[in-house]
């Protein structure tokens, strides 16, 4: 995939946080997302959206992120917590 611009990466991380795929960055430490967490989040979003699961912010993924949609997250906090517990 062509290399991502910073803007695209920022948009992608914001989008993934907004719709529940990434936990919001830690407000205290400002801890940024780890690369693994980001890859996991992208894969989850691609799977939920019916895309090929690559773990990369490729064009198809960025395209879906631009599609009009409902504001509600795809993954509720409960699911994130229960997945953490399972892990």
């Amino acid at each position: 995939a062509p290399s991502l611009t910073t803007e695209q990466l920022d948009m992608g991380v914001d989008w993934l946080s907004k719709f529940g795929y990434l936990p919001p960055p830690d407000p205290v430490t400002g801890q940024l997302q780890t690369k693994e967490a980001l890859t996991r989040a992208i894969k989850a979003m691609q799977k939920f959206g019916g895309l090929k699961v690559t773990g990369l912010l490729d064009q198809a993924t960025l395209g879906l992120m631009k599609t009009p949609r409902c504001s509600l997250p795809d993954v509720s906090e409960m699911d994130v917590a229960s997945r953490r517990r399972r892990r």
Partner: protein
Amino acid sequence: SSSQQNKWNKRHLSWRVRTFPKDSALLGRDTVRALMYYALKVWSDIAPLNFHEVAGNDADIQIDFTKADHNDGYPFDGPGGTVAHAFFPGERFTAGDTHFDDDEAWTFRSPESHGMDLFAVAVHEFGHAIGLVHTSAMESIMRPYYQGPVGDPLKYDLPYEDKVRVWQLYGVRDSVSYTNQPGGASQTPDPPVLLDLPDNRSTPLLVQDAPDRCTSRFDAVAQIRGEAFFFKGKYFWRLTREKHLVSLRPAQIHRFWKGLPPNLDSVDAVYERPGDHKIVFFKGLKYWVFKDNNVEEGYPRPITDFGLPVEAVDAAFVWQHNDKTYFFKDNQFWRYDDHLRHMDMGYPKDSILWKGLPPHLDDAMRWSDGSSYFFNGKEYWQVPGSDMEVEAGSPRLIAKDWLFCTEMQADSPDTEAKSTETRVNVHRHPDHAENGFEVCSCTS
């Protein structure tokens, strides 16, 4: 899909469009209300839920068109991006509330390129409002991504995946009343209920014996889903909640209110029952209960069910002040509790207690201004709020204040009287409608 976000414990849910799209050139208010009605009906057709539109501020599902940050934690972002959201039943203060981004170009029966199909998005959001979360199933209406228009609201059939998920939440509706027969065989859809023009549009010419709204006296008058219905013979006129006459031509009762006997030539009284918001029609010793515009099974029944000892009812209305139902016959009235379904003690009483009302009534109704209105002949009396005395300016002429007739039309001689008494002194009032000005009201 992730776990369900709880569900409503009650089955009767009220809704109201509190704010409309600013750019209503694209979609009129009545169209927006009709689309909300049908989007909710998609779910109530298959689940044991009943939605009814209300006028007040206490609706379970408050629907708003708003934009940008509107202080609910889900700011909109201009055209595209996020287009709508709804709150799950478990939310404390906002349960069921549904917001549409007013920066979107909301459309109805338009190509996808013209904008966002309001019906499709509303079905999705009301899925949240009853407790469904997003799903990844490609054909589901609960996919988070906008997938374009879903066709005609009257013919829309929910994907099976979504039916199963709502049945898991609420069980199956016992008497399924599909908008469409399951399995895709599309039968002629139910006529739009209370939210679109009665289906007499297909009869371009007025049927000859149709009454004239400007010279008639009315058999029954009722507020139903916030709108006013004036019944005369086999016909009725309808006014929107803004008192706009839906059509200058009357609609035929039998073609809209399904299930009344074909030989019924008029009705005595009509009212919308508090609690379940069903609609009750009276004629002689009998009454019928309607859910929306379809009569329920097992009717007609005798009016003795209400504990009424009389042979007919002149008037019936629900007093906003105490949510009790009042029946009038000649110079007596009864008070009935529709929530407990029994007559209150100490009735009948003499209707003289309602100071200033005439001794006989054609019907009565509550209205969204908080007053109660009493109709007899060509006149009406207004009783404000919790008073039991008519307000000073009564009576006034029905034809001019409700049915947009000019003074000349309204004052012409009565074509027929419901009772033998003649009208001797018709009060002259300042003319509310400009002379010769016909009011046309466009709805969806």
